[in-house]
Structures are given as C-alpha cells and as structure tokens.
C-alpha cells in the first residue's frame, strides 16, 4: 500500500553531504541575525570615527545648542555642553568594541591555556589550576573589579583591560577543561601518543581543533561580559571619563540629569547601542550552541514546520493518505487543527 506521498521517490538530491555545507548555511537564523548585527557594529567601529560630522570633544558654547534635540545639523542632538551626540556615539562604539574585543582575546587565550593545560597535564597541575579557576569563579566579580579599580589612582583604558581580562578567564577555562578531558580520553589521542607525536603537536592538531565551537562560544561570552562590565564600571564612574566610550557617555548623561531634563537623545542611543551589541552577541552564541548541541536545534530544521508545537510525548505523526477534498470553509477551519501542520500543500479550494 504505497500511497502518493510527498516523499521524494529518488534519493535525496542535495549536492553535498551536510558536513560539507558551508558554515554559514548551517547556522540557524538566530545566529545569522546576530552575525549581521555584529558586522554592522564592527563596520561602524572601523569607519565610524572617520565619518564623525564633528569633533566629539568640541564643546559648543552657544547656549541655544545645549541639549538641543535632534535636527538636520545634529542627527542625534547635543549634550549639555553642546557636543554632538552622534559623533560621540561613533567614537564610543569603536572604543567600547576595542576594549571588549581585546579583553575577549586575552581572556580567551588565558582560558584555553589554563583549561587545556589542566586537562592535559593532569595530576597536581590539574588540581592547582582547577582550584584557582574555581576560586576565581566563586568570588563575585563586580565588587572585586570595583575594589581593584578603586584603589588605582588612574583608571585608564589599559588598566580596565588588564583588570577585566584578569577576571574573565575562569568561565571559559572550566568549560574548555571539561571538553579537553573528554577528548583526551578518546582513542585517536591515545593513538597519537602511542606513535610518539610530541605533546604540542597533539594539542595543536588534534585537541584544539575539536574544541573550536566551544572556544568560539567562550570568546563571544567573554566579549559580552567585557562590554557589560566596562559599561557598568564607567557608569559608576570607575573608568577613564575623559574618553568617549559608551559607558562614560552614559555616566555624563546621567550626571547631567539627561533623562530628567527630557534629553532622551543623549541617554538612549548609547544604551541602545550596548543593548543591540549585547543582543547580537547573545544571538550569535545561541546559534553556536545550537550548532554544537543538536538537541537544542528546532526540530526538523528551518522550512519544515510539521513538528511545531508538538510535545515530546505526542505520538509519532503519521502521514495521512491524500485527505478528501474539502470545501473552502472546511479547509479554512481545518487549517486551525493540528493535523493540518502535516499537510504539504494546500491549494485554493483545499484540494492538495
């Protein structure tokens, strides 16, 4: 009993096996959106400051231009002292991203080194490194950051980078250590050891490449943390307030009572920029997560909605034989029922 089923009668006609499909195509929609958003911001960071209509530090003394709402001359309005908000924003995006990406790179490198070393060397080294990692994980970060920066007489960009990197590696180190332990126990590593491959080669060629998605996710997470922490610290006033990072913009906006005075154009854009960058990173991360852990992916992938809204305990769906032709009203009502999810094609009049 083979009914006319919308199942391809010949073997699947994809040009390549799924593993060979480009990384871009395999990324879920969420990650693509996140990547595009990040791309926009990175572009803004690179060319933005070259496009600023005004010098962000230039204080226009004309009183009419203080806290002026957006208009043609100043697309995002002006600050209390007549500075152009848009220019500050463009410079701010670059500074904030520079800082966050630097911290991301340094902390991720640290976490890879610590994580891989702990897992691979084992023994006493593992105990010591794991202890250090766990201790720094459990000590609350923001109070420690506040203390560290609070004692420093100058709170420059470099100091912030050092301090943030110093506290940003434990998360990733822990995950990478766990993953490396799992890989280390696998047969192909043992085989390499037996054939006498030097340790550094095993690490570089066999272990680390298998952890790329974990390292990528860890990097994105660290950048996210760096942005959040640096903006928060600047907002509190514990950063270099003479530079135009997004955080210090918010500090000045707040200290000049921008919101209360109704100057939303000074306060909202930098906060929104941080929120959007953060969202982009989270989306990217969720996508990378789903790539690595197939269970998190939408069942059936994109374009196949048959399992939408089904609970795990629902019985396996059965493809019906071609359903009897329905009138327009009947098929309209039928489209609300759950079994209509499995209909492959519904033409006008409801005849599939």
């Amino acid at each position, binding site marked *: 009993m083979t009914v006319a089923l919308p199942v391809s009668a010949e073997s699947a006609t994809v040009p390549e096996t799924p593993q060979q499909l480009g990384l871009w195509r395999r990324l879920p929609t969420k990650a693509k959106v996140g990547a595009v958003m990040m791309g926009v911001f990175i572009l803004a960071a690179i060319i933005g400051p070259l496009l600023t209509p005004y010098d962000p530090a230039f204080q226009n003394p004309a009183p009419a231009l203080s806290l002026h709402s957006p208009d043609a001359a100043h697309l995002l309005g002006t600050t209390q002292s007549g500075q152009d908000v848009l220019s500050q924003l463009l410079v701010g995006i670059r500074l904030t991203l520079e800082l966050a990406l630097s911290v991301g790179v340094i902390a991720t490198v640290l976490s890879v080194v610590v994580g891989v070393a702990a897992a691979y060397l084992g023994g006493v080294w593992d105990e010591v490194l794991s202890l250090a990692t766990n201790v720094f994980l459990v*000590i609350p970060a923001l109070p420690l950051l506040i203390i560290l920066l*609070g*004692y420093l*007489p100058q709170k420059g960009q470099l100091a912030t980078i050092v301090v943030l990197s110093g506290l940003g590696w434990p998360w990733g180190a822990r995950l990478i250590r766990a993953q490396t332990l799992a890989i280390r126990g696998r047969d192909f590593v043992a085989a390499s050891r037996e054939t006498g491959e030097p340790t550094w080669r095993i690490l570089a060629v066999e272990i680390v490449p298998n952890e790329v998605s974990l390292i990528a996710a860890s990097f994105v997470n660290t950048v996210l943390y760096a942005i959040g922490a640096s903006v*928060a610290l600047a907002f*509190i006033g514990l950063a270099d307030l003479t530079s135009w990072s997004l955080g210090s913009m918010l500090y000045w906006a707040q200290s000049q009572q921008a919101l209360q005075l109704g100057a939303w154009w000074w306060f909202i854009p930098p906060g929104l920029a941080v929120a959007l960058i953060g969202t982009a990173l989270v989306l990217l991360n969720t996508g990378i997560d789903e790539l690595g852990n197939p269970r*998190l992916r939408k069942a059936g992938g994109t374009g196949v909605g048959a399992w939408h*809204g089904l609970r795990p305990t629902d019985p396996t769906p059965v493809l019906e034989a071609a359903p009897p032709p329905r009138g327009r009203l009947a098929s309209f009502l039928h489209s609300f029922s759950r079994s209509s999810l499995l209909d492959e094609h519904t033409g006008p009049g409801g005849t599939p």
Partner: protein
Amino acid sequence: MSFIVRRVIFYLVAAWVALTINFFIPRAMPGNAVQAIMSKFPNLTPSAYGALEAMLGVGHPGSIWHQYWSYLVNVSHLNFGTDVSQYPASVSSLLAQTIPWTITLVGTATVIAFAIGTALGIMAGWRRGGWLDRVLPGLMFFQAMPYFFLALILLELLAVRAHLFPIGQGYTGGLIPGWHWDFISSAIDHSLLPAFTIVIASVAGWMLQMRNVMLTTIGEDYVLAAQAKGLPDHRVVWTYATRNALLPQLQGFGLALGFVVSGAIIMEIVFSYPGIGLLLLNAVTSNDYPLMQAIFLVITFAVLLANLIVDVIIVFADPRARAREGAR
C-alpha cells in the same frame, strides 16, 4: 571525605584567597595613598592615621607577616576598624545598617526571578516552537541591555512621569526606622520598583538556561522510557524531566550568584537604595579604604555562604550526590 565537608574546605580556601587579595592590593598600589586620604579628611585622629598606615603598609609598622596575622585576627573578630569618611563611626556599624536592606530586597527579588524564569523555561522546553520560543529573543534583548539602563528608563517612566512608584530611596524621608507599620509599608512601597527591575532583567537568563537543560533532559532515554511506559503526561514532565533538569539549573544558580551581586550593586546605585552596594560606591568615590575592604569581604563571604547553601540543597535533591556525600 564527605562531599559537603569538601565543599566547605573549598569555600574556606576561596575566602582565604579573597582575604589575601584584600590585604595585598592597597599595599601594591602606586602613589602615597595615605597623604591623599589625609588631605581629604583633615579631622582624623593620629591613631586613625596610624591605622591607615598599617593598612597600606606604609611607614614600617612591623614585618609583613605580623601585619597579615593581625589583619586576619581582626577580620575574624569582625573588627574592620574605624571608618574614614563617616568618622568616627565604626565600619561594622555602617555595615550592620545597610546589610539588611540589601538582603531582603535582593534576596526576595532573585528568588522570585529564578522561580518565574525556571517555570517559563520548563514550559518553553516542553513545547517546542510555542509562543515562548518566539518571545525568547525579545526577552534576551532585555537581558543584553545594561541593567542600569533598563532600570533608569523604568524609573523615569514609571516613577517620575507616571507617579506609580516612589522615586528611589529605601523609605520615605522623615520616617524613623523601626518595627512599625508606617515604616514597613513605606519600605515595601519603595522596594517594588527596584525588585521589578531586577526580575525583568534576569528572568530571561533563567528561562533560557532552564529551557536548554530541559531540552537536553527530554532527550534522555529515561524520559522516552517513561513515555513508552504509558505514564500520564504530568508525571513525565514533572517527575522524570523537571526533577532531573532542576539539578543542573540549581548548579547554574550557584554559579550565577556573583552576577546577582553585581546587579544588586547597580540597582542600589540607580535607585539610591540604602544597601551595601550604595555604601560601596560611596566608599570608592571618597577613597574610604577601610570601608571598601570590609564591604568586599562581606559581599564575598555572603556569596560563598549562599553557594554552600545551594550545594547542600543539591545534595538533598540528588541521590547520586547523596551517595558521594555518604561515601567515606
């Protein structure tokens, strides 16, 4: 060795690391901090000056080990010295005034956010593709936004413009703190908006984490087996899926306590809420080193203690951990 005992030892080590960092940082800083402080606060007595010098390691007040030892002894007696910016109040008294505010507000709000987020996560994990999945990116946006940003906007819109909530502070000025209804109702009133912002900002995180854990758990064989056994849906969801998924979720809660603290500090700054976070900020801006040190230690110890409590809860909930606990 029993699991709990091992965890306690770990937390003691972490506490010691925190203490040591706290001890060495002021000594490692460049510049003569003592002079800076003296010029800021001219009304300090010579003994306070001496204590400051001792803290900063200036002026050869004995070997470093001797200083370290007396520092540890002082901390164990909860003697954090006299405050600088609000001289002559003792640091301990300042802490005692502010800690209850922070714990009640932040503790309650966090537990509520965790409960709501976990419940939503269970629903989102169980029903793939439901409306919760569609709402999730929006919620993530709220979480990606800097917390103070969201808080300030809500403060402006709901408190200043709409007059729905009081504008910051812990209680209406002029009321005398005490156990009477006027004060308590005012305190509750003032805590609503800050609590609300904490919940909104953190719910998405808990929800996403629980959803992911649920998805992984649902994929486990024993959930499929429960289904194959014809058990009623509610039993499969609760006793087979959720009970197992809660264990990693609780562990995640423990790990996230540090972030909870960060959120608390910022919330108090934004709302001028009289808790320990606001006190910390004031201490930093006024270079009040004794107070800074003490607050950092108190916050850290509180987080360590909370982590220990979570560990104990996990031991009670997971029979496998109980087995490790009992193994001698």
